[in-house]
């Protein structure tokens, strides 16, 4: 199982690398266009007074990954409780989040389960669409994401980030004679949801890689513990065996002596 997790982790890392060029080019495009566009047109950048908050909690479907799920659920629950659970809508990614928040009777809007084994970009789009419409329909005024960030095999951090409203730094105004079709406003309007999808995709991949790394470590620890236990038990067994032999021999010897003295 450790080897399986290791292989899956490597694949997830590769996919993270593969997503980077697309993400970078989208971000560059947005940064180039934003200075020329009226931000009020873009409802995903809309900063509102915060009454209700949405939380996207990214966990796995399966356990056996050490504290991977516990950590992320703990952080999410603490943050939600700090706001007040009646003011928070939860999007559960992975069975572990669903089980946790359902049992505690939180306000769950959507569950996304059973897709990790066959993770593809369509999942990110689907999750993104639900989150976007919840935000643009003014059900919530801010969306947070809590997930495990993959640092390296040994380290994963639980990150809590604000996903919506999107924040972009002010870029310098570009004055290149480029042609924009149909126009800058429409381009940026379709750019931004796509940017969000790729952001979602990144969260999923980070979490997936972290899950596999955590599982790898957990399985390695389990193997080590089992070996230790085997060592202890073998010693215990040998001691018991020796003790049994000694008693048996003592019985025979004392029996023989008893016979002789008769």
């Amino acid at each position, binding site marked *: 199982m450790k080897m399986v997790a290791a292989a899956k982790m490597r694949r997830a890392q590769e*996919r993270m690398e*593969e*997503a980077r*060029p*697309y*993400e970078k*080019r*989208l971000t560059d*495009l947005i940064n180039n*266009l934003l200075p020329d566009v009226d931000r009020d047109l873009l409802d995903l950048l809309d900063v509102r007074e915060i009454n209700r908050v949405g939380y996207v909690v990214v966990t796995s479907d399966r356990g056996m990954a050490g504290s991977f799920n516990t950590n992320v659920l703990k952080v999410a629950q603490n943050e939600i409780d700090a706001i007040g659970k009646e003011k928070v809508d939860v999007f559960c990614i992975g069975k572990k989040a669903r089980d946790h928040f359902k049992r505690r009777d939180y306000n769950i809007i959507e569950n996304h389960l059973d897709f990790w084994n066959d993770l*593809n*970009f*369509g999942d*990110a*789009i689907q999750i993104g*669409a639900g989150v976007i*419409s919840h935000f643009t329909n003014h059900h919530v005024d801010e969306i947070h994401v809590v997930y495990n960030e993959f640092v390296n095999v040994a380290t994963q951090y639980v990150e809590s980030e604000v996903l919506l409203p999107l924040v972009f730094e002010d870029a310098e105004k570009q004055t*290149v*004679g*480029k*042609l*924009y*079709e*149909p126009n800058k406003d*429409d*381009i940026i309007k*379709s*750019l931004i949801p*796509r940017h969000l*999808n*790729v952001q979602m*995709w990144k969260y999923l991949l980070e979490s997936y890689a972290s899950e596999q790394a955590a599982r790898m470590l957990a399985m390695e620890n389990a193997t080590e513990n089992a070996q230790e236990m085997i060592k202890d038990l073998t010693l215990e067994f040998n001691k018991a065996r020796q003790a049994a032999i000694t008693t048996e021999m003592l019985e025979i010897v004392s029996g023989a002596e008893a016979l002789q003295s008769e």
Partner: protein
Amino acid sequence: MNSFKLEIVTPTKIQDEGQVEHIRCPGLDGYFGVMANHREAIIGLGVGEIKVTQNGKDHFLATSGGFAEITKEKVGLLLETYEQAEEIDAARAEAALKRAQERKDAKDVDVTRKDISLLRAANRLKVSKR
């Protein structure tokens, strides 16, 4: 015929298509063609088919939309998803189209999502027959 470099970038891979002579893309306002030495441009793409002409031969891709980034050196297509015509399973595409049509009458899904899935399904089917 003059050629230019075409690159297709998606969230899951970068596909270097090499030198091509002509592409036709589904712009948000209708189809447009790009040949070598096109003016620098950023063009939004909708759901539709992309025709790529390479060494005098055409091949087709189905896409769900994205952007064309045209620079002096090359043309980059930033697409969320695309499929080669040969890769599309026509039977599955047909089933998806049927599902989308049935869903169109249902009231619970929001309208734009429904229309887009219908559009996509129809487009995939069309491209698969190329």
